[in-house]
């Protein structure tokens, strides 16, 4: 496929004797939002951690734009345009919004030898980004993360993914612990990310949220991919639930 952005092929991962992933193949096209569903322990998080460089697979390959790549750590993934937003936001709560946004990729003032942060550029960009992700309250970019609400923290993590022009944004349970309004903000962001040319992998326990935004649903169960091409427009929520819990197998046989 010409418009394929990422392809994970035949990924296996063991934790001791437990096989967390069994020959899982997953592909994401450009401008596509893929919903990744599955019960606890289905292997969603393991798969995502491999794609974002946090874990290494025991076997299998990853291709980006058709070229085989090795993900040794988080930096590898980020420089290849894969940004992951974890459920706990993965922010440093003691640091300010601006310092979190640019953590690991801080802009420096010339001469670079002085290693001096360009705080004016950081704060300026942060202010713009916060507006973009829908924080209308006037929060100074020097505010520490510890002073923000759960939704505001999630928005900061999302702003970070937007700023660095990631091609693929992985959202791992982004709507957990969020209020109704904040959840709508996240879903709005996912739609606007697609409209501006990003791809997303959206992991959530809440199937209703997934149904609202994704183009395609992938289901995993016990380390295996059991469905790949579910169109949310042609399936009911109950149908997907049956696949997640494994009840559809019984039905098909019977």
């Amino acid at each position, binding site marked *: 496929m010409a418009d394929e952005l990422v392809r994970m092929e035949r990924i296996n991962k063991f934790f001791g004797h437990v096989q967390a992933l069994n020959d899982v193949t997953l592909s994401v096209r450009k401008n596509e939002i893929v919903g990744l569903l599955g019960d606890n322990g289905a292997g969603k998080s393991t798969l995502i951690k491999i794609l*974002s460089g946090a874990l290494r697979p025991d076997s299998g390959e990853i291709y980006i734009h058709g070229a085989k790549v090795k993900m040794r750590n988080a930096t590898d993934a*980020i420089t290849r345009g894969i940004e992951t937003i974890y459920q706990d936001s*993965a922010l440093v*709560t003691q640091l300010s919004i601006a310092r979190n946004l640019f*953590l*690991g990729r801080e802009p420096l003032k010339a001469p670079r030898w002085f*290693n001096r942060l360009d705080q004016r550029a950081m704060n300026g960009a942060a202010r713009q980004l916060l507006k973009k992700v829908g924080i209308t309250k006037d929060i100074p970019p020097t505010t520490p993360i510890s002073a923000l609400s759960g939704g505001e923290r999630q928005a900061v993590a999302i702003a970070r993914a937007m700023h660095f022009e990631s091609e693929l944004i992985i959202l791992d349970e982004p709507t957990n612990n969020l209020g109704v309004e904040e959840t709508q903000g996240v879903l709005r962001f996912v739609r606007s990310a697609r409209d501006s040319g990003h791809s997303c992998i959206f992991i959530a326990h809440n199937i209703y949220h997934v149904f609202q935004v994704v183009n395609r649903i992938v289901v995993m169960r016990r380390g295996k991919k059991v469905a790949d091409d579910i169109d949310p427009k042609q399936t009911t929520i109950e149908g997907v639930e049956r696949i997640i819990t494994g009840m559809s197998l019984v039905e098909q046989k019977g």
Partner: protein
Amino acid sequence: MRLTHLLQRLVSAPEFGPFVLLAAEILVFTVRTPVFLSASNISNVLAFTPELGMISLGMTLLMTAGEFDLSVGSVFGFAPIIMWTVYNTHTASLETGFLIAMVLAALIGFINGWMVTRLKIPSFLVTLGMLLVVRGVALYITDGFPQRTWSANSVLTNLIVGEFSLGTLRIHASVLWFVLFAAILGYVLTQSKAGNWIQAAGGNADAARARGVRVTQTKILLFILTAVISGYAGITSSIRVSAANPNSGTSYELEVIAMVVIGGTALTGGRGTIIGTVIGVLILRMMRNGIVLVGVPGLAYNIFIGAIILGMMALHSWLERRHRAGT
């Protein structure tokens, strides 16, 4: 309006509490005895303050990154022993001895950092072990006897701790080094990219790592910095008091950690302040000096230090809770 805003920010700064305490301390001692602010006493305080102060600066960065080092007092005693043994046995020049001592201190810091980050042993245990090893080595190679240091009066010793007069004050060069180190490390912590990494490493190491911050290297470098600056402080002290005692620096580690946390740096990492540490150093050093001057028995010193630590911790935690509730 802007003035009240400025005032508010000043009061909520973590350094504000320690600053008030320092001011109160100076006030009380000055009222009780005029000797406290005399030129000779200020010279006296300025002579011994930089030595523990330098260690505290290194410890501030290390603690901000979420680790601490109990072996600083041992390295303080060990580095001058190495330098003066090399010199007194005519093995090499004083300058070479200085370099050897610094390199060995760096190696101690590296081993500390390597064991904490790679073997994932808590820094409490690693540096406790290192405290005993380094002190033991210093005692073993000297048979427990102090090393002669008065025969050398070189450019190097003058550069490190040479004396000069400023009006009626006698100042040691070590004061200038302390100010310079404080300025550099304060800049690193608050203005530089390295400082952002140090705070992130101590605040949420996993999140920092996920963003590509090299947490392990950052921590190892800070362990090296702390060990080297402790060794340098020990050499400074040995030249100033004309003796390199293998037992010197004993229990400095706890006093240094006390100075750092009194200044407002979090024991749990993520938040640190060099200005606060400088204030914390002054609070404890002036306390030691002032208590004797006003006639409190020297043995009661620890009562005051302990009370200050407890009081400041209570204040910091109260401010923290109020800060959280207010937002």
